[in-house]
């Protein structure tokens, strides 16, 4: 079936799609009422479950003793607060908890936190069975000065044995515990290049880090010394080693996750909070458009966009009205949404030429959904400040975010594409 999608080239595909596109995008009224329809929940859930079943979100498996800094890693990677991370955990197996980002429903990133590793005889079997079918990155978290690694090593070897190809990152945390004085600052620039440690690092710490490397020898691991502290701890920067960790992660899983999680560009707190939800819904919508689903792709896309609108509205604490939807959609143009009038926009999508047709549909829908979400954010932000809105500004905003979305979600959509074709 997926092979068939290859047969469609350029405009043939669009013609096919435009036939489908009749119902939801036929009129603004229809689109708006579909978005506002409160009965979309069950359908959306079904669609999300179907998408997740065929393209499960990537799983970062954090393996480490209690208090070794696993939560700090989740916190720093996702820009969440400690409380959010702490409350977000849900138990899944006897020895593990998971944390879905941004939330359980629309997760596009999942962390598995293995607990009780200091107990004798940890068996990774349950945890492995739990995420056997999912994309993986194993991150072993170990304090830089800790050398009681027997249980940890045993578990890592056990996992390595059954999954010789999973990438393995060893995060060596809390570097400051190896500093000779309390006043010492982090060495800048970051002195731990792969395999090399520069002389600016205290000798005790070097010794300890190298000894840990020895302990993990033969596991084909990549070592990343990090120190993720809280702002009040007084270490600058608080996310010491984040670049190196992201490099390691992106090398292992080239999904563009860092870009997707990055909120440093956004100033508005509401917009920051809504960002992860927009990314996640945009990806889901992209999937819905690209992969053969039992439900009609386009109506699913609309349902997902509706879910996104509602969740943005709840972040801003503003009501979602027919009027606001109409204002935005008419500024952008229904055709753009359906893909009919969006050809000129399509050319803006980066790497347009290299993308296969089906992938293009997915990427286009993802980028449109992303831009829609961002435009709604902009709309709400302006409304909150009581500023007047011109269709022109909305349209400009949409175009800008459409490009950004295309860039951001490119890798993720590619991965989904690859995965659906595998399955």
């Amino acid at each position, binding site marked *: 079936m997926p092979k068939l999608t290859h047969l469609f080239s350029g405009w043939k595909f669009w013609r096919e799609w435009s036939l489908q596109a009749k119902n939801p995008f036929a009129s603004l009224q229809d689109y708006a009422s579909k978005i506002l329809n409160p009965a979309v929940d069950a359908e959306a859930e079904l669609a999300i479950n179907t998408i997740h079943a065929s393209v499960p979100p990537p799983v970062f498996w954090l393996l480490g*003793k*209690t*208090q*070794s800094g696993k939560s700090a890693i989740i916190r720093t990677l996702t820009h969440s607060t400690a409380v959010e991370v702490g409350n977000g955990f849900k138990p899944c197996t006897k020895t593990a908890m998971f944390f879905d980002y941004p939330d359980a429903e629309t997760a596009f990133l999942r962390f598995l936190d293995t607990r009780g*590793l*200091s*107990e*004798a005889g940890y068996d990774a079997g349950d945890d492995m069975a739990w995420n056997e079918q999912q994309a993986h990155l194993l991150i072993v978290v170990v*304090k830089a*000065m*800790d*050398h*009681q690694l*027997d*249980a940890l090593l045993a578990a890592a070897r056990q996992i390595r044995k059954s999954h010789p190809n999973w990438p393995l990152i060893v995060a060596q945390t809390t570097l*400051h*515990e190896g500093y000779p004085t*309390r*006043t010492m600052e982090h060495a800048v620039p970051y002195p731990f290049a792969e395999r090399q440690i520069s002389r600016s690092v205290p000798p005790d710490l070097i010794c300890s880090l190298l000894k840990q490397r020895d302990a993990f020898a033969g596991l084909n691991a990549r070592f990343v010394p990090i120190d993720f*502290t*809280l702002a*009040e*701890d*007084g*270490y600058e920067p608080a996310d010491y080693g984040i670049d190196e960790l992201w490099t390691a992660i992106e090398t292992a899983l080239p999904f563009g996750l860092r870009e997707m999680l990055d909120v440093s560009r956004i100033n508005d707190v509401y917009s920051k909070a809504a960002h992860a939800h927009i990314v996640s819904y945009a990806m889901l919508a992209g999937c819905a458009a690209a992969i053969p689903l039992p439900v009609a792709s386009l109506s699913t896309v609309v349902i997902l966009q509706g879910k996104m609108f509602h969740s943005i509205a709840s972040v801003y604490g503003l009501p979602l009205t027919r009027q606001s939807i109409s204002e935005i959609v008419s500024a952008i143009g229904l055709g753009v949404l359906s893909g009919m009038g969006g050809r000129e926009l399509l050319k803006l999508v980066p790497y347009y030429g290299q993308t296969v047709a089906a992938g293009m549909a997915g990427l286009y829908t993802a980028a449109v959904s992303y831009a829609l979400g961002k435009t709604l954010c902009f709309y709400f932000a302006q409304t909150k400040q009581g500023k007047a809105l011109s269709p022109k500004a909305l349209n400009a905003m949409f175009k800008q975010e459409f490009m950004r979305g295309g860039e951001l979600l490119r890798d993720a959509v590619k991965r989904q594409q690859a995965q659906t074709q595998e399955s």
Partner: protein
Amino acid sequence: MKKTALLIVLFVLVLLPWLALLILGGIWLWQQHYLLIAAPILLSSYGIAWILSQKLQQDEPLPPTLPSIDPDDRWSPAAKEIWDKIDALAKELNPADYPLTDAARLAALAKRVVTEVATHFKPEAGRAELDVPLRNILFIVEQVCRDMRELLDEKVPFSHLITVQDGLQVWQWKEKFKQFNYLRRTLAMAASPFTAIPNELSHFFTGKLTDYPKGLLERWLLQALVKKIGYYAIALYSGHFPPSAISTIETEQEENALAKRPLRVLIAGQAKAGKSSLINGLLGEFRTTVDVLPVADQLRLYKLQQPDMGDVLLYDSPGYSENDFWFQKNDRQLGDFDLVIVVCSAMQAGREADVRFLSELRNWFGVHLERRMPPVLVVVSHIDRLRPFREWDPPYDIENPDNGKARNIREAVETVAHSLQVAREDCVPVCLSTPAACYNIEAVLACMVNKLPDSMRTQYLRTLSEGQRKEKIMLLLGQLGIRRGQA
């Protein structure tokens, strides 16, 4: 005379109406045919009152002037257990069942007590009463007789009992005991061991106890007798008393030597928890010479001279982890120490290994009931590395924390105490980062001194069991005539 007559008249006048009422009431009951119901009620209420008054008399507590007999607080848990049984038995006894003049009954009672103790300590012997060696019985009898005599001699409540005539008898009795040739007495008692005690007692007390509050003295004597027999039987069987004359001279030497023996303190903990730093801190405080004696099983020995505790041996143990305990590998016994200090890093959240170590320790003493579990102290190290990381400005008031660091220290201590199931006050937070900048090491020493009485008891039982092996060999040598100079 006249006045008395008047008083009687007055009395009668006052009483007469009430008496009349009583009689009239009786007549009324008779007339109404209620007498048959009233009479049994009357009788039964009087009956209950009588029984209660009897009971009241029996439960009357012994006057505090009569000495009570207490167990030795150095005894092991097993010995304490059987002592409680004997104590309960003594309290249950009804003096009416065991008149002090009835030798046969008292002998049976004494036998029962000794048998019970023997069964407790040697449960594997099928019929313990047959397995009680004669020399043990003789030893108990001898000790009990001596003690009972001393009790009767010295305690004040008895002085009014002893008349001039009795005094003579007491004196004779005392003399008799003093002059008693050990061998002759032994032979006499050997002929009928259990009757020896009651014979002595009944001879002394026949007909003399009637002036004393009825039953009280008998009860006390009976209890004292049972307890004394129990006490010596327990002491004998749990090895606290060498059961023969051979060691009477040595006992004193033994006790002197005990006082001189240093306490053994085990410093245990996970790797890098700060065991060696703690030892450095403890030694640095007093600037004593450090003897580093590498021991074969990897325990390193240090000597700490401390005015409050005398000499203390510190054993630095290799760090353990969940599945790797040094004492399992080297077959080193966990019972070799009088105080155990577990060093726990505040930064190490995985405390499963410490929990397992403590449960191994408890298990060991659960199996070896003749020994006492040493007190356990927990030292929470590395508190300087708690949040806020950059701050270290001791002293901190941990009991009433007034800043973030102190609060975090308190929290760490509480977490450790909770997960290791140790009392909060037995957990001492310390900083051992550099020998010069140790913080709170005095608190560790203070806790060690606090635990000293407990440690001494543990040490007593430990040295006892170590001594017993030697004792048995000596006894055997003596019996075979190899060892000279013993009576």
